């Protein structure tokens, strides 16, 4: 037995044993364990393989910076790769599996890479694999790809729930160690709205791992006491298991709470994780300090870990990481670790101190080697000894674990995410948090304090300052006295010379000191180049352990101060965050809200198939008994509309109410055609341009009274058009008296079209709707039989005699039913957007298939709607540019196949007969096409170079993509009723 659970101590519940498995082997742990501490308690030191060389690895840390001990937790669709065992809370039934090894963790074939490492130095792949050309794709790359990655994701839907929430506070405290607890307490007692968030599952931070006594209490008990008080304060929100991962503009923080990741049987009513956007007036970063590894030969072997981690396993989890532990340190932390180990009865074989002198208290009977350096370690799956060197002499010491301490770095990540760089302190030999303004400050060891007492005081003081700035009066917070402080100062040694094995700076990515040297030699000396060339700092821990060492070593190689080297850029995420948490509920069918039409129920009853159209569900066609394909239904609907009548749901069109004495003038300026003199009771088709002269949207506007118009827009552009109108009214012409409000949701709107539309509608509408009383383009309020007030417009998209009827949405279904009923004898049918599309193509009406953001009014044959005599309208001035009026522009034409049975598809291009397909020969494209049941063949609308001059020409419809070529005749784009006789029936 080399590592084991102590008989006493630790913040674990010895009464609650938990079963779990690792690589199929069953183990037991205790409540309060992390997966890592439980594995160690079971003497499972080998936990993972490194990325590149597949070296055996154990844990290096006891926290969130862990680069090595990554494993997959869970099984099947609930498996999560790359979980750090050091932060994974143990639960009963947990299943953990090691990664990036084959066939097993112990025997990993790819560990051969380690022997090949001289050939696999930094950036080796940039220099080779180029010959022969095909080999890269066929051989090298597949091989490289096979080696890629660490864990494996299961590419299936995740059964767990996720959610997001907002939170607001006066003060956000990040980290619940001594500094954070005091800050939260000071602010909480003062009545401020406080949020205290900590990654850990238990508040206390380093207090849970330390042997100090605070105000007469054991450190963990002190922490528990503070937490207990905070929990009673209604203005304080405690957020354990919550990692603050990003600091964004305006004091918005992103945080992720692991709500149920630690539960054996999660509740279906709660999410697995919850994303928080925390809006804070002030924030305090009390994230502590990270202990730096020492960079020496063999520093990555299982069993080598930071001294602080050894203490945490010992004091917090009651686990001895080894039976014979050696310590390698450049400061007080190593001595403290040795003392705690000895105090718990664990054998400490030696303290090897890089410093020639030190005054740290040495535990009794422990050998201290001053001015020594470890240059190699031995053992494979766990170290069994080390070689140290002093004054030219080497000596071997047996040990089964090695605690190392290379000094401390404040964890300043979050404060550097918005551009500020950390500042090198010669004094503290560390990068300190930058000044980012008073709203966000660091406290405790994150701000460079090292003693526990100072951290406590600093937390309270920073909270007081924040509250004062917010104008809250605060009283004084008594900070208790600390007994058992130790001196955590250190004398940095970036790189331990004389290494006999690789000395790693980035454990996960296997970046060792030689790689850094190579990068310098090859000109990748800037720290960002060094990072990119060697991949140091790019692994899942993002260099939490290695980056400062890298800077120090590069500085050493260049003979400058680390201040000159600096750090690489800190970016979100402080720790990796799941896609799931960031996505929340917006996934699968809930990816975007669904809009349903007031006639949805009616459509469903009538056999509709729905299609997504923007956010709307629209009825596409209505299947009747016996119809096997959508085309059968659509053909029937079209013919029926042309022969009898049909009812189509057009509620999705945008509807905008426009009020004001300036409304007519306003419309005249936003439409290209004239609207000033539109009479009350009339509708008009209008074209809107963008300021660059290109068509923006079309629609109709009706004048209901002198100062009240109602505009309809296309479904797709409803929101854009309203915004456009608001922009024009509010910024171009704020002096015009005009007001808008959308009424899209208020109305169920239906088009009743077909030669029999009037007969049908007159059974519904009380008012006289004869052609004389209600001619084409009439618009106004009417009363339905039964008394309902409605709006009626005589507008036609289909080319038939047609009415658009709008009724309050709640009555939509009833009215549609009534129309169907009233028109039963006339054969009225329901028709959907597919039939509507056929009808409009036959009639040559354009939609956004033609108005595609590059077309002018003239291109689509609507040049007459450019009222150039108006002094101004949006788009007027730039519409006359040469390129927009050139003779060879694509113009709207109709196409019909020369051989009637041939199909024309939208998306095909056009070629002169006999011409070869090439860009130079490209004549245009088919914008819309359909089978016309009315004509018995396919018809299409197309955009053709100088098209209007080419009626009668034969043209090749080239669809190489789908292997089709169809000869077609160019014709005017209106296939039915070019005289518009039907509209005036």
């Amino acid at each position, binding site marked *: 037995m080399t590592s084991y659970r102590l008989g006493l101590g630790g913040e674990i519940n010895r009464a609650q044993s938990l079963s779990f498995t690792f690589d199929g082997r069953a183990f037991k742990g205790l409540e309060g364990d992390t997966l890592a501490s439980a594995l160690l308690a079971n003497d499972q030191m080998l936990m993972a393989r490194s990325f590149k060389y597949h070296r055996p690895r154990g844990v290096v840390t006891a926290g969130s910076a862990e680069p090595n001990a990554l494993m997959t937790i869970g099984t099947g669709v609930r498996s999560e790769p790359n979980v750090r065992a050091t932060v994974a809370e143990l639960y009963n039934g947990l299943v953990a599996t090691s990664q990036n090894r084959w066939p097993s963790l112990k025997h990993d074939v790819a560990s051969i890479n380690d022997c090949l490492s001289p050939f696999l130095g930094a950036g080796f792949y940039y220099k080779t694999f180029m010959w022969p050309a095909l080999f890269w794709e066929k051989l090298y790359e597949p091989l490289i790809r096979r080696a890629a990655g*660490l864990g494996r994701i299961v590419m299936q839907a995740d059964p767990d729930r996720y959610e997001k929430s907002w939170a607001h506070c006066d003060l956000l405290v990040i980290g619940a160690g001594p500094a954070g607890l005091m800050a939260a307490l000071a602010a909480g007692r003062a009545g401020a709205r406080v949020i205290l968030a900590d990654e850990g599952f238990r508040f206390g931070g380093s207090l849970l791992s330390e042997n100090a006594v605070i105000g007469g209490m054991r450190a963990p008990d002190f922490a528990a006491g503070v937490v207990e008080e905070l929990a009673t304060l209604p203005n304080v929100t405690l957020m354990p298991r919550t990692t603050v991962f990003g600091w964004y503009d305006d004091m918005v923080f992103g945080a992720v709470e692991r709500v149920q990741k630690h539960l054996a049987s999660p509740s279906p009513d709660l999410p697995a994780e919850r994303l928080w956007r925390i809006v804070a007036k002030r924030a305090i970063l009390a994230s502590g300090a990270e202990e730096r590894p020492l960079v020496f030969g063999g520093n990555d072997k299982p069993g080598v870990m930071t001294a602080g981690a050894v203490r945490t396993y010992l004091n917090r989890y009651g686990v001895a990481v080894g039976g014979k532990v050696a310590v390698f340190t450049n400061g007080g932390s190593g001595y403290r670790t040795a003392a705690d180990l000895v105090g718990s009865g664990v054998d400490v074989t030696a303290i090897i101190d890089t410093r020639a002198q030190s005054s740290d208290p040495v535990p009794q009977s422990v050998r201290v080697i001053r001015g020594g350096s470890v240059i190699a370690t031995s053992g494979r799956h766990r170290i069994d000894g080390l070689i140290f060197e002093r004054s030219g002499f080497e000596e071997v010491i047996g040990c089964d674990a090695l605690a190392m301490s290379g000094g401390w770095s404040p964890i300043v990540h979050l404060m550097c995410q918005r551009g500020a760089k950390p500042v090198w302190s010669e004094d503290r030999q560390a990068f300190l948090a930058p000044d980012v303004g008073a709203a966000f400050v660091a406290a405790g060891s994150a701000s460079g304090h090292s003693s526990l007492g100072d951290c406590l005081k600093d937390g309270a003081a920073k909270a007081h300052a924040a509250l004062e700035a917010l104008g809250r009066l605060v009283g004084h917070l008594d900070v208790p006295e600390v007994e058992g402080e130790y001196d955590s100062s250190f004398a940095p040694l970036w790189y331990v010379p004389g290494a006999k094995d690789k000395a790693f700076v980035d454990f996960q990515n296997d970046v060792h000191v030689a790689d850094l040297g190579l990068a310098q030699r090859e000109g990748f000396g800037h720290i960002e180049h060094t990072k990119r060339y060697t991949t140091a700092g790019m*692994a899942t821990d993002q260099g939490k352990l290695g980056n400062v060492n890298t800077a120090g070593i590069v500085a050493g190689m260049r003979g400058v101060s680390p201040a000159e080297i600096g750090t690489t850029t800190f*970016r979100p995420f402080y720790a990796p965050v799941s896609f799931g948490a960031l996505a929340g509920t917006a996934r699968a069918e809930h990816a975007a809200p669904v809009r349903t039409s007031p006639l949805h129920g009616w459509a469903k009853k009538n056999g509709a198939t729905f299609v997504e159209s923007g956010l709307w569900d629209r009825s596409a066609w209505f299947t009747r008994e016996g119809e096997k394909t959508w085309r059968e239904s659509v053909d029937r609907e079209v013919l029926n509309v042309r022969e009898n009548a049909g009812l189509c749901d057009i509620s999705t069109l945008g509807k905008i109410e426009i009020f004001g004495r300036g409304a007519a003038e306003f419309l005249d300026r936003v439409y290209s055609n004239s609207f000033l003199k539109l009479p009350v009771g009339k509708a008009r088709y209008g074209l809107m341009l963008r300021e660059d002269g290109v068509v923006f949207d079309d629609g109709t506007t009706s004048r209901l009274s002198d100062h009240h118009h109602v505009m309809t827009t296309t479904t797709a552009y409803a929101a854009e058009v309203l915004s456009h109108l608001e922009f024009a009214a509010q910024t171009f012409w704020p002096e015009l008296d005009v007001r808008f409000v959308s009424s899209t949701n208020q109305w169920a709107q239906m088009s009743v079209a077909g030669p029999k539309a009037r007969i049908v509608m007159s059974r519904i509408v009380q008012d006289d709707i004869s052609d004389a009383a209600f001619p084409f383009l009439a618009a106004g309020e009417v009363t339905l039989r039964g008394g309902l007030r409605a709006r009626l417009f005589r507008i036609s998209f289909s080319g038939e005699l047609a009415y658009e009827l709008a009724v309050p949405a709640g009555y939509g279904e009833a009215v549609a039913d009534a129309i169907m009923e009233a028109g039963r004898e006339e054969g009225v049918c329901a028709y959907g957007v597919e039939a509507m599309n056929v009808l409009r193509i036959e009639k040559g009406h354009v939609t956004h298939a033609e108005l595609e953001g*590059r077309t002018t009014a003239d291109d689509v044959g609507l040049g007459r709607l450019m009222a150039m005599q108006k002094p101004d309208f949006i788009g007027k001035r*730039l519409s006359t540019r040469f*390129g927009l009026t050139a003779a060879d522009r694509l113009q709207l034409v109709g196409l019909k196949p020369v051989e009637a049975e041939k199909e024309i598809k939208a998306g095909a*291009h056009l070629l002169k007969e006999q011409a070869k397909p090439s860009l130079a020969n490209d004549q245009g*494209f088919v914008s819309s096409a359909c089978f016309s049941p009315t004509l018995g063949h396919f018809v299409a609308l197309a955009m053709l170079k100088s098209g209007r001059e080419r009626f009668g020409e034969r043209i090749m419809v080239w*669809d190489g993509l789908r292997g089709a070529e169809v000869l077609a005749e160019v014709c005017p784009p209106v296939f039915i009723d070019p005289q518009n006789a039907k509209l005036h029936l």
Partner: protein
Amino acid sequence: MRYSALSILKQALSGNRLWQPAWREPQPKPHYDVIIVGGGGHGLSTAYNLAKEFGITNVAVIEKGYIGSGNVGRNTTIIRSNYLLEGNNPFYEFSLKLWEGLERDFNYNAMVSQRGIVNLFHSDGQRDDYARRGNGMRMHGVDAELLDREQVRKMMPYLNFDHARFPILGGLYQKRAGTVRHDAVAWGYARGADQRGVDIIQHCEVTGIRRENGLVVGVETTKGFIGCNRLALAAAGNTTTVGRMADLDLPIETHVLQAFVSEGLKPVIDHVITYGAGHFYISQSDKGGLVFGAEIDFYSSYAQRGNLQTVEHTMEEGVSLIPGLSRAKVLRSWGGVMDMSMDGSPIIDRTPIDNLYLNCGWCYGGFKATPASGFCFAHLIAKNETHHVSRFMRLDRFERGYMIDEAGKGPQPNLH
């Protein structure tokens, strides 16, 4: 030193001690024939091409940071030539062809990986648009295939076919598209240019453009004045700042686009995929990280960092398209500042000042253009003549009404 398996072997045996710097760190000379502002992909490629193709070697590339610190080093590495419009497609196809021979050309493995791109479509209208685009590509001899739903499912069974808000109807597939290792592009060009005599001057910011008698005579920099006969701007997101120094009026607005990488994962995504019902796109790098992105942040920004909302929105689209991503973790997000033009297409042209040349407007699509952009820009600078594949990419096209508006969104850069 030529890079090859042999050189690696030799070096390894001598402890990797004799590798030479990939490029020199020269002091600026007082005067160059051509100065290029911007050590991004386009600037370096231009320098490389000037030297290699047009024999102009007295050239300096001036970069304010380290080379590759701009968008060439922070993009999502997608290369493709599936463009719709005549103004774009031949140019990007030319570029793709250059990618295909690039590595042996500049003796650097940039890991050009033609794994294919699938642009998914989710409505009939979108299918028609992609068909039009695909046919346009075919007309120009570019490979394109229109996949139906089942063909897409076969290639990428992990996409959300059963519970999608916007169903996948199919995709436009370009096999020859793919990804390239971003940093290696900058480094390969830099090394190739340096070997041919180009001076790459890093950590030197251009702060002014000096003119005499209307012509540019050189640039003021943080390392002093440097003279030149011709000045070429390739400053991407900072184009306006540099252009202002010569009083250029530019149709450019600077915006930030974010990109993301996940933790390293065993390969699961072989292709480049774009989501047609949103803006999400993704591929998996040879290291195992999922590299992905979505929309710009919509506001003008010169800061290389983005907004949480965009981050969330990107993940929402990602999980909606690929449900299996839910338990994968995002490692890092970053931003790049882009030169968004008023029609979404680039400019490679002369300027009103005779010896000042302009290369900009790449929006979020200029990485794939790097080889062709460098070639055409070098052609223009060397011969004072526009290369025919870039003939539509003119600065005065807006005045003349010849916009190259792929998205059809008009003069609002953040909509492109």
